[in-house]
């Protein structure tokens, strides 16, 4: 059941998942910090270390409650800092540095917009009103292993205070708005973030299309794919 990509949301994989987030954050932060330092003529190694430390910290802390709570605020702060940095570079005649900072600032927003643009017409045209939630004890599959794993996961999530739990119902985002007619096996809210979980058999190959559709409907959500026969 463990997904090596860190996408298995069970408690036992939390450490692996945090390590993966930290690594990705550190790599992205280090790369940006290093390039920025090189363009402004500073020590590249220092830039890599500073950027890597910031990125790694953000990656590690991402699942924590306070990050979810202040996520929008933090995102706005970093965006504002980036915009100011780009402005500062342009006004000092550092065109290349300014262009680099402008790209870094716009990439997250652009990638979200790109993801949203992939939304299927039948999802785009759905009425935003969410139906009432159905009982969650319903099976999601003919595989008893999958049904048992789903209920075990729901049990763990309830202990952590997860809310807005839906099983095999149309996709509803963090605001309680229906965003698609696809039916993730499980969807829930935890610490201010919306999660979607799909169980697939090893032979199915439907995991990636499932994830892309879920994210095109809700680019702010997080998808977990669990392979289980």
């Amino acid at each position, binding site marked *: 059941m463990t997904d090596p990509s860190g996408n298995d949301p069970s408690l036992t994989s939390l450490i692996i998942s945090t390590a993966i987030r930290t690594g990705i954050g550190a790599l992205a932060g280090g790369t940006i910090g290093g390039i920025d330092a090189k363009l402004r003529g500073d020590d590249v190694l220092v830039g890599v270390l500073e950027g890597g430390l910031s990125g790694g910290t953000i990656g590690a802390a991402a699942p924590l409650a306070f990050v979810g709570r202040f996520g*929008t605020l933090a995102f706005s702060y970093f965006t504002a800092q980036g915009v100011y940095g780009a402005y500062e570079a342009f006004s000092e005649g550092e065109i290349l540095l300014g262009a680099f900072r402008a790209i870094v600032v716009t990439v997250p927003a652009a990638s979200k917009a790109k993801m949203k643009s992939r939304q299927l017409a039948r999802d785009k045209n759905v009425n935003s009103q969410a139906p*009432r939630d159905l009982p969650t004890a*319903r099976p999601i599959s003919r595989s008893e292993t999958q049904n048992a794993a789903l209920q075990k996961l729901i049990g763990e999530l309830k*202990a952590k205070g997860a809310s807005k739990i839906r099983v095999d119902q149309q996709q509803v985002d963090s*605001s309680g708005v229906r965003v698609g007619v696809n039916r993730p096996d499980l969807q829930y809210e935890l610490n201010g973030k919306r999660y979607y979980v799909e169980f697939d058999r090893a032979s199915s190959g439907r995991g990636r299309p499932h994830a892309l559709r879920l994210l095109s409907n809700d680019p702010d959500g997080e998808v977990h794919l669990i392979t289980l026969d």
Partner: protein
Amino acid sequence: MPNPDSMKYLLDNQLAPLTFSWAFLEAPLDVVVASVKQWREGYGRRLAISSHKGEVARLLLHLAPLANTRNRELFIGTNSGWTAYFDNDRNGGDVFTPASYLPKAFGMRGVAVSAAPNTMKSNRKDARGIYGGVRMSVYATRDIKYHNCLRSIAALNDGGKWVFHADGEVQSWEEPGRYQAKRIADRFTPELLETYCRHFGLNIFEPAFYGPDAVLIASDEPVSMIQTLEERQREMGLID
């Protein structure tokens, strides 16, 4: 489908969506509140707890404002051995987690109920209304198979298509013949829900059944959208 106007709802749904879904826990008010406090603080939530007294219609107003994720929960004593649970989820009561978790973790049975009128007349993107339906789930203090849901019955409009679900063993207090009704909405109505709940000593649609003692628990659960009750009622087409 029966006319929604002729159906029974709590307070005639004048405070909807607060009265679309709620739950009951089989323990006195102070025991339920202490259990919730232990549970929520156990995973790091900070809580503000306040006591209130009054009729249910006034008590429910303490839940405002509504939020995209419940961060205000109201526990109301009843004239039975059960405590009622309501919350401020903007879609109308997100009661599954407390109604199912508390029974197993703290040894008190739980009953979750939902009764919302179906006013959605079209599947068009711009149509206004509510996908309605009726639902009841009974949660035991121990696991039955993979979960502690003893019985769930639901007939609701699942986003444009009416569905009927019944999970778990048929209980002695049920009228399974009703589930054969041709129209799905007729298989589980608010009246049948009310009858089933009476088996547990719950007069769910009777305002005098609730109160006067209540406790509000407000938490620091992250929310990204808050609305007044009136704003949400207007958005849902409940008021003009």
